[in-house]
């Protein structure tokens, strides 16, 4: 399907969507003016939902935040630069290093794998400290890099396993996680700043979660959100400077 046909279909669908909304509103207007009721729309839309965070947060959150970060990266790659990447430059992962452009099919599949690894890490963090931990995990300062075909999300997952092992006093598991983390990305050309920030942020999650129960909740909430999206902003700024 060519671009013009796609544009026609999308714009037609958007127009149809708006017409349906307008017709719905007109129906409600008629009901309110002539029958003094709101059109009984709860039969279609259901009652107001609960405002509590769902039990599926540790799975939904990384998919949503990771998906947004990925889309932003793809837009940047498509419009501002066409850089290539290698999945791993060092360590055990360099054995399966793959080179390509960010917008290739192979790359997008690897990005989806990164998001799955992010989700696994989120589930583990949820097991450690509940939805607060998993939410903070998904708003990592290095989120934008964690969804790319690099080893960030894998290192974060290994960190999550190691942290779980530490909490459970499973020291053998902890030792294996440390060795795996080093093997996955034994530094050859220096430790990357992005990884350092990611790991420092992960180490601070328990402190941020504790502060969230105090009057400094607004600070940790703001910080977590700012951290989570700062990396997107910094990626985009970098392209423009």
């Amino acid at each position: 399907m060519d671009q013009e046909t796609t544009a026609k279909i999308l714009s037609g669908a958007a127009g149809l969507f708006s017409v349906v909304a307008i017709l719905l509103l007109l129906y409600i207007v008629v009901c309110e003016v002539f029958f003094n009721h709101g059109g009984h729309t709860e039969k279609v839309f259901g009652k107001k939902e609960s405002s509590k965070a769902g039990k599926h947060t540790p799975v939904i959150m990384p998919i949503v935040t990771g998906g947004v970060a990925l889309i932003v990266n793809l837009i940047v790659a498509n419009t501002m630069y066409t850089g290539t990447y290698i999945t791993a430059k060092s360590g055990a992962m360099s054995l399966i290093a793959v080179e390509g452009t960010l917008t290739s099919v192979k790359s997008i599949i690897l990005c989806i794998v990164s998001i799955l690894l992010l989700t696994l890490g989120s589930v583990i963090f949820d097991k450690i400290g509940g939805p607060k931990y998993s939410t903070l995990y998904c708003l990592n300062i290095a989120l934008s890099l964690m969804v790319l075909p690099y080893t960030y999300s894998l290192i974060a997952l290994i960190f999550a396993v190691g942290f779980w092992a530490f909490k459970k006093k499973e020291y053998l598991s902890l030792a294996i996680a440390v060795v795996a983390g080093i093997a996955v990305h034994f530094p050859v050309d220096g430790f990357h700043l992005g990884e350092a920030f990611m790991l420092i942020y992960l180490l601070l999650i328990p402190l941020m979660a504790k502060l969230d129960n105090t009057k400094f909740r607004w600070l940790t909430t703001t910080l977590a959100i700012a951290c989570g999206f700062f990396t997107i902003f910094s990626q985009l700024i970098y392209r423009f400077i």
Partner: protein
Amino acid sequence: MNFKNKVKSFWDNEAVRVLAVAALSRVAVLLLSLLFYFIKEPDGSIGQFIEWLSQTGDVPHYMRIATGGYHGDSFVDPVGPVGNVTAQMLVVFYPMFPMLMKLVGFVVGDLMISGMIVSNICAILAAVYMYKLVRLDYSAKTASMAVVFMFLYPFSFFMSFCYTESLFIMLSLMCIYYARTGKWAACGIIGFFGALTRTQGVVLFGVAAYEWVIQTRRSINPKTFGQGIKDFFKALPLSGLFTLLIPAGYGVYLTINKVLFGDWFRFLEYQKAAPWYQTSGFIPDNLNQHLNMAANNPGLSFIIYLPQFIMFIVAFALIFVGVKYKVRTSYLLHIAAYTVASYLSTWLISGGRYMLSCLMMFVPLALLARNKIWRYGLIGLMSALNLFYFYLYIRGYAIM
């Protein structure tokens, strides 16, 4: 009551707190704009920043109107066209904002600074009225979120500069608030000025008129249809006729055209010409054009065309959200009418900015934010996009 209790009582007033936070937010935006400017121009000065701002977008046109007003066909401009815009073509810009610039300019001296003062004061008052309006039906938290989302909207930084956004938003919110509270004279007068600020101001008449009808309808309980008609017109407050001042404001603008050019609709001809090329067109065709322009101009796609397309869908999606949460019908009508009025333009390039004034969409958004995931996600996403587009605007990208 001693002084300490008086201060506490004053601060306990929700509107005062909103006003204070809104004022701080304006200071933050201005400081951030300076920071972004000095990243671009490390050797620049505040004076150069103001000078640069006065050359961006429609600002020069507002300043020309504030300085010399509108002109008819016989006028010979000694300066000549500015950016392909002759003195006569300035009639496409509505008069309210330049008039206020001029008024404040008598005190301040500089028109650019006076425009920014008007914008920032209006932004602060807009926050208060958004809060008061949402607070009529919902909790303080929901009302606060509506204000937060208005200020986090990706193109909300225009509220701090020399554009009509803040003034129009303030007048719209005041008009709707007074319609909601049955103060029809205030609604009509403020709506009159709203209609003199932007084309979309006339949409306020639909909202106000609907409120006039529905408030009356809810006050009667007829047994038959015929009885209902009689009771309705008996109960209909005549003060509601003040809402007719809103289309009258638009009538004043048309009269300006008639007086200057002998043609009520001369502004439409100028809008069709360069540099705007604006006419009215079938909305799906206009949206199709946005997508094609996005594909053919990658550098402008994520700045102009894709945000416009996405905001069209978001606005109507929020109508469905509003229906689910039983948001007041007049608010949802405002979203629909405002969006349709904005997207009828065939060569829309400021859709992202225009949709900031689609104010009632912040109500269903605030209701969505009662869920923690939605709240954090929306705040994060909107903050990031706001900073991104703000930075690009100061860097001189085609955000207008």
